[in-house]
């Protein structure tokens, strides 16, 4: 089957082309690129300061091992499969061995590189805490890559197995033990035994179960979709991405806080946008994440001016994250025909974004003032964040939306 053997190449090239176009767009957004560079430099500076201030008994080895183990065992496999493949490629499953081998190799190269990057970032902390006992960089890197190979192979076998939770626990445990065994300088037999157990598990458990299992296509496609979505999410920080696929989370408990209270027609879009924000895609989680990170940063930064910078940039980034909500597709047969003036939709959207940014500003300012314990800082931060929220919504967004129509 010549067509099938060329399929991987075609898919991968198409993916690269698409990714390249997005990177191009990201590169052009110089303001945000600058912001990212600045963040990298600033965090590098604080990393060093943080290392110097570490207490004596700090469990650095454990922390590094956990981080590396997490990076090593998270091994989603990039297959570039799409939904229609479950219909069209399913009959050819037996002939797709080479395709899936390519896909595992690709996943390994990509994740291996990221793993090494994580190792480089962790290395100063590792060396600082383990001092003279530090294992050589190359040895740890080799073990990490070996662990990655094992994890990707096991993850692939899991695609044939129905109940994977116990296997995942086992896989994580062994990966952690191996990495801690090497990095933590345990006596030589420990990591060697661990590696032997891993091999045995591979042969006796994973591959044996696989022999009788059926490949779960839908799970495989879901896994690929999630990875594609992650990349698009990241790109979405910089530019608008036409969405890949929509996921919905019911969030029943939070939803009960926002029932339909009034049947007035001006309440329709606040309801619609709010529920979409809560349940669709990742809007809500993204907002929480940025708010929590922003609060932590504001609290620990402990410095008036820089805290202002954090508040302002987090509010701005969150605002950017909320913008795609506007173009979230609503069904034409319903929303498209509602007898309601379009201006009402615009106003509701802008008000929701402003409310969310204002709530975030209050939380960030509280954290920022609580850090150094200076109450006077609170109104200053509040004013800075509030101003950015106002400019972003009633200035920038309002302008952009009314230009659109």
């Amino acid at each position, binding site marked *: 089957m010549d067509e099938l053997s060329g399929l991987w190449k075609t898919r991968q090239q198409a993916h690269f082309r698409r990714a390249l176009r997005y990177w191009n767009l990201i590169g052009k957004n110089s303001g945000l690129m600058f912001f990212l560079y600045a963040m990298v430099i600033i965090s590098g500076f604080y990393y060093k300061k943080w290392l110097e201030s570490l207490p004596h008994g700090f469990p650095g080895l454990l922390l590094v091992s956990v981080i590396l183990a997490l990076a090593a065992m998270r091994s989603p496999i990039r297959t570039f499969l799409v939904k229609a493949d479950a219909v069209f490629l399913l009959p050819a499953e037996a002939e797709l061995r080479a395709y899936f081998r390519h896909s595992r190799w690709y996943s390994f190269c990509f994740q291996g590189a990221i793993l090494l990057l994580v190792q480089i970032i962790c290395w100063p902390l590792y060396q600082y805490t383990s001092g003279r006992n530090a294992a050589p960089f190359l040895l740890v890197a080799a073990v990490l890559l070996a662990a990655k190979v094992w994890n990707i192979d096991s993850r692939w076998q899991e695609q044939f197995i129905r109940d994977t939770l116990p296997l995942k626990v086992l896989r994580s445990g062994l990966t952690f033990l191996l990495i801690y065994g090497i990095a933590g300088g345990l006596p030589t037999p420990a990591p060697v035994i661990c590696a032997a157990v891993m091999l045995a598990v591979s042969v006796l458990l994973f591959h044996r179960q696989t022999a009788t299992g059926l490949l779960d296509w839908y799970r495989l496609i879901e896994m690929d979709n999630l990875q594609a979505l992650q990349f698009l999410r990241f790109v979405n920080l910089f530019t608008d991405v036409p969405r890949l696929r*929509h996921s*919905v989370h*019911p969030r*029943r408990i939070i939803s009960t806080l926002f029932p*339909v209270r009034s*049947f*007035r*027609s001006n*309440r*329709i879009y606040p*309801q*619609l946008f709010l*529920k*979409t924000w809560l*349940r*669709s895609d990742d809007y809500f989680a993204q907002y929480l994440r940025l708010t929590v990170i922003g609060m932590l940063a504001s609290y620990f930064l402990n410095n008036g001016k820089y805290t202002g910078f954090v508040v302002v940039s987090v509010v701005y980034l969150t605002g950017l994250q909320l913008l795609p909500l506007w173009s979230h597709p*609503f*069904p*034409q*047969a*319903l*929303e*498209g*025909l*509602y*007898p*309601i*003036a379009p201006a009402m939709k615009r106003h509701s959207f802008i008000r929701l974004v402003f409310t969310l940014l204002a709530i975030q500003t209050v939380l960030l300012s509280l954290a920022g003032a609580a850090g150094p314990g200076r109450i006077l800082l609170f109104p200053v931060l509040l004013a800075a964040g509030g101003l950015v929220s106002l400019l972003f919504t009633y200035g920038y967004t309002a302008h952009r939306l009314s230009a659109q129509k």
Partner: protein
Amino acid sequence: MTAILSVAHLSGGYTRRSPVLHDLSFAIGPGELVGLVGLNGAGKSTTIKHILGLLDPYEGEIRIGGKTIREDKTGYRRQLAYVPELPELYEQLTLEEHLQLTAMAYHLDRRTYQERSSRLLALFHMEKKLHWFPIHFSKGMRQKVMIMCAFLVHPDLYIVDEPFVGLDPIGIQSLLDLMVEMKKSGSSILMSTHILSTAEQYCDRFIILHEGRIAVQGTLDQIRKRFGDAGASLQDIYLSVARGETTWTN
């Protein structure tokens, strides 16, 4: 009789260079159920899109309750409800929220909403699925949600596009009963369908579209008379038109 929907010399489509519809004219009066019949690609859905205001006519005009969409967009839209061929739902909203949003959009008060919605839910056996999300619905249930949203509104004009596909027999009967009931209360209905036996039984008049033109329109008896066979079924007539034996038409 003042027409609820009047379409006059409508020509339209997706590109000006190759219009799909050519000079359509018809009217629907209060309490009338009119069947829009034609092969795939005859222009049924395009006609419907024009009436909904989703496409702009190249020539001619469409009035609902005497108004064109340009004169009063919200007023025009308030008078009609639409059941599409392919159900489109808010994936992020529950069934109940679909109904509530519809009620809000069309200015129903809470009491009316509650009365109508509980009746519709019972009719389509969906009472227990109020808090479900569309992802858990089958094609037929999705269609039922669209139908409930449309019939919650009680507008002057219903546009119903191929509504029977995927519905279970009880669903089909409930929909037919509802249409009869709305007709009696004075609403007009334009329904496109391929299920000719049902159409023959329920529609007051027919518009047979062929290649973007109205091949023939009128009551079944009027059409039979022109066709020249008083015993012909709608199916026979429709097939004859579809095969291009159109010397007897307009």
